[in-house]
């Protein structure tokens, strides 16, 4: 067998092949670099400002050194708690409806589409809408309005992941429940839901982590607060919001606090995402088999 007459092009083809491989590797390196750079810089800048005071004190007036973001951490906690009360039930119910009762119907498709629309709404627009719906009639900013905004933003993620996790429950499990003579939809649901629960919980965690870092919807709903506050009816501080305000301020002390806050926030989010990945790769499959 002879190597053929097309050899003239083979050099070009080989070179193109190697070239593309190099480009792909370069692209990968360029993508990984900012990520690593951001993380390293965050740790470098934030770690030095992280101390006990950060977690226990409220911000000091400008010019006085020290202080912390305790109020912002608490505020975020309160806001996220409220958000979960809204986002989780509605999202899970929506997901159950899509997976169990409405599967394949036009209505279900419409619900799914609507959830996707909700997901795509820019967070700032959500803030505007909530301002109009709650802040304006109440004539004051409040933690309540911020929590509602965040809660609504959680719904699509929770709904989608719940539906996906429920659909992953093998048919055998449902058939076993039916075979036991359990016709009541509620019982069937509790078996299926229980099987899928690790996945559903991870979905909630994912949504939680996502809204934990949201700033835009809070700018004119929760507004932010320099002082300690636990009331739902007053403006409240939030970690990402505080980071934003401090970052664009002209004071070095506040910049330091911003970095520290960013470090805390990113650690929480990385933990959440890693946990989600860990559970998804093991938990659901284990639970279902």
């Amino acid at each position: 067998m002879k190597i053929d007459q097309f050899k003239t092009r083979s050099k070009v083809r080989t070179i193109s092949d190697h070239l593309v491989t190099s480009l792909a590797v370069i692209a990968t390196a360029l993508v990984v670099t900012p990520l690593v750079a951001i993380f390293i810089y965050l740790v470098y800048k934030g770690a030095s400002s992280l101390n006990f005071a950060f977690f226990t004190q409220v911000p000091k007036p400008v010019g006085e050194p020290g202080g912390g973001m305790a109020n912002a951490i608490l505020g975020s906690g309160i806001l996220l708690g409220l958000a979960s009360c809204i986002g989780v039930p509605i999202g899970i119910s929506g997901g159950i409806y899509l997976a169990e009762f409405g599967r394949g119907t036009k209505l279900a498709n419409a619900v799914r589409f609507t959830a996707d629309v909700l997901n795509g709404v820019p967070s700032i627009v959500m803030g505007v809408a909530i301002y109009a719906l709650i802040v304006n009639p109440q004539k004051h900013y409040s933690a309540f309005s911020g929590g509602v905004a965040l809660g609504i933003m959680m719904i699509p993620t929770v709904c989608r992941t719940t539906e996906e996790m429920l659909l992953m429950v093998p048919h055998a499990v449902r058939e076993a429940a039916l075979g036991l003579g359990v016709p009541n939809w509620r019982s069937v649901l509790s078996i299926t839901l229980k099987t899928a629960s690790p996945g559903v919980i991870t979905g909630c965690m994912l949504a939680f982590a996502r809204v934990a870092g949201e700033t835009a919807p809070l700018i004119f709903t929760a507004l932010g607060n320099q002082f300690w506050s636990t009331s739902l009816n007053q403006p409240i501080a939030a970690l990402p919001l505080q980071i934003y305000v401090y970052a664009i301020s002209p004071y070095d002390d506040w910049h330091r606090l911003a970095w520290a806050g960013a470090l805390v926030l990113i650690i929480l989010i990385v933990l959440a995402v890693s946990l989600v990945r860990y559970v998804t790769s093991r938990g659901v499959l284990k639970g279902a088999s």
Partner: protein
Amino acid sequence: MVLCAFSIFGIVILIAWQLILRSQLAWDKFGMSFFYQVFTDSYTQQKLYWDPVNEHFSALPFVFGTLVSSFLALLLAVPLAVGLAIFLTEMCPRALRGPLAFLTELLAAIPSVIYGLWAVFVLVPLLREHVNPLLIRSLGWTGLFGDDNPTGLGFVAAGVILAIMILPIISSLTREVMTAVPHSQREAVLALGATRWEMIRMAVLRNARIGIVGAIILGLGRALGETMAVTMVIGNSPEIHHSLLANGSTMASVIANEYAEASADMHLSALTEIGLALFIVTIIVNALAQLLVWAVTRGAPRQAH
């Protein structure tokens, strides 16, 4: 159960309704020209777009800013995202794939405000000291890189940070549609004597191209609505310049900056109308993207990595 599902409808309808209601004032006064009219400052005879004091409201600079920053971001992000996707699906050694995919996922999870923080303190000085002067020197003749804004803020800064932010989405989705291409297609091309790049080009990219376009459009959708990071680095000036290094504003950033302090009804209404426009545009763009991606992945089962 069904009630909760219906509440999702209700929420979206409520949002849309409120946005329409509150922008009524500005809509009644300006109509469609709200988005393109140009005013003239009575003192300086300069072009004027956004003057809350004199009730001159034109959204043109913000539409311009949104489009320019988003397309600049796409220009930077798409080649990198597709390159990353190609590397991860077709070239990456198995051991590296998991960690790299996880890293990309982390990139997607970083909140916008942290990107903004990093951009303000690291990216902008970098641009100011090193990159922008280089751009002015080498590409200033195009007219796109003027030298009257030495702050490092502006469209280039916004474009770069936006590119970093939309990269993970475009890349993940591209990977998904590339993986959905059946193995038999790859083998068919290889058996004809193709090199690896030729195989990727003919079997994978060609078959997945509709989905890749969908991924890019989804990235665009995300870029259009992105607020915090952009607000922190774009300079917040309601003007239109031909220089990419100039300060500007986007639809999202002007709302973020002015909404809390706006007191006049017309001002608030104008801002709400901008919000409404953003709402409608992102719905359309996202719906289009979903359609394209769905068309490609519909047959193939979801594959985990």
